[in-house]
């Protein structure tokens, strides 16, 4: 499992991209989906996920839909139009960052010749 510092810096990108692909998800579903997709290498903590979801909602990247299960309220998150754009930007940014890191850490010597 990767360290929480590494995950924290990429959490917004992970959440936005996942919602872009899946459409509508709730909190627990997001953590489980990430865990499954990465074979448990990335486990999003609830302590990091919910503050991020609330912040993305406030900044207009996400919108929510409530579903009542008895006394329980389940909040489904979907990307807004602005969120779709941000998701693409974040993914591009992270891809470039990873390539630079590869080059910086001398993991992909070919990049230097490109």
């Amino acid at each position, binding site marked *: 499992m990767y360290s929480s510092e590494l995950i924290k810096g990429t959490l917004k990108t992970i959440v936005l991209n996942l919602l872009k692909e899946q459409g509508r998800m709730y*909190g627990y579903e997001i*953590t489980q989906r990430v865990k499954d997709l990465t074979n448990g290498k990335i486990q999003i903590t609830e302590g990091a996920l919910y*503050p991020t979801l*609330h912040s993305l909602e406030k900044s207009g990247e996400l919108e929510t839909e*409530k579903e009542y299960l008895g*006394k329980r309220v389940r*909040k489904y998150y979907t990307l807004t139009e602005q969120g779709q754009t941000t998701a693409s930007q974040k993914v591009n940014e992270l891809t470039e960052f990873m390539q630079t890191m590869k080059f910086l850490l001398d993991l992909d010597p070919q990049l230097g010749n490109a």
Partner: protein
Amino acid sequence: MRNVTDEEVIFIDHDLAARGIVLEELRDNLIDHICCIIEHESTMEEDFYKCYERVLPQFFKEELQEIQTETDNLLQFKNFYTMKKIMNISGISTVFLILVGAILKSLHLPGAAVTFLLGGFTFAFMFLPILIIIKLKDDESTTDKVVFSFGLLLAMAIAVGVIFKIMHWPYANMLMYSGTIIFTALYVPLYFFTRIRRPEIKFNTIVNSVLMIAFGGIMYSLFDLSYSKKYADQMQENHYYLHDNAMLLFETNQSLYAAIPASEQANQLKSITSEVNTNLEKMVGTLVKNKSTSGLNSSVPELMTALNQYNSFVGTLNNASLKSIDDSGLKVIERINTELAMNILARVQQQLAVNESVFLGNQVIDKQLVAN
């Protein structure tokens, strides 16, 4: 798969609230998340409460409130960033407006007052309040936050006072005086004693305290100078000039009374002019004796009554060359400085003498015309 009952949901809700999750939306999220874990990751046999106690610690490192704090921080971060941006813009605007205002003022160009006013208001009501909010959010100790915010509030009071002074608005002196005195006598010692014992900021504390005391002292001395000695001397000289001329005219007028035929109007004018003049001389005497306008309270109504009678009488003479005496300066005479008060009285005295002289001059001309 087990199902979390409504009673158990209510229990979780109350427990989360008791653990410091105050944001309802966040609590709803966490309740659903906990319920999902319990439903998917526990057996039917496991006791709900034991299971809940087992699941909960995975949500935090030390205490559950961390999620609430983190959410608050993230929600406020955007505002915080915007506020810093506004503070920077207002800071730059303040510097620009004050500099432009100073240039316009020194070149006597129009728009200086408006520019100063805008600059001052941007500084006092945008830059300083945002700075206080940002400082309060900083990680510094509570004492530092309180002391710093107190200082900024005083700076606001002084800045507003200065703007009011430039614009000649009321309460300017009160704001500047109280702000500067509290700043120098209370804030600087408070700043000094709360920081001096910390070795890493000892030097800065001493330098800043000296600078602030110097600033406070200079501001205070500037306010206290009120008006210059040169101005006072000039005003006094002016008073004597006006007074001496009036006296000369009064003397000449006495000779002219003898040169004109006796009439009721001339007698009345002589008597009423003398009455007003006696009142004026009495007031000048009081001013010279007290060196202040505070002792004039009883004399002002008497003079005003005499002046009203005089102006009514002058009106009955139907002579366009005779002017009614303006009493607006006398109405505020107790609130102005001694030299200015003496000037106002001397001007009234001169107008009296001129009116008398004009009346008598006309009478002399009429007499000569009749004789020819």
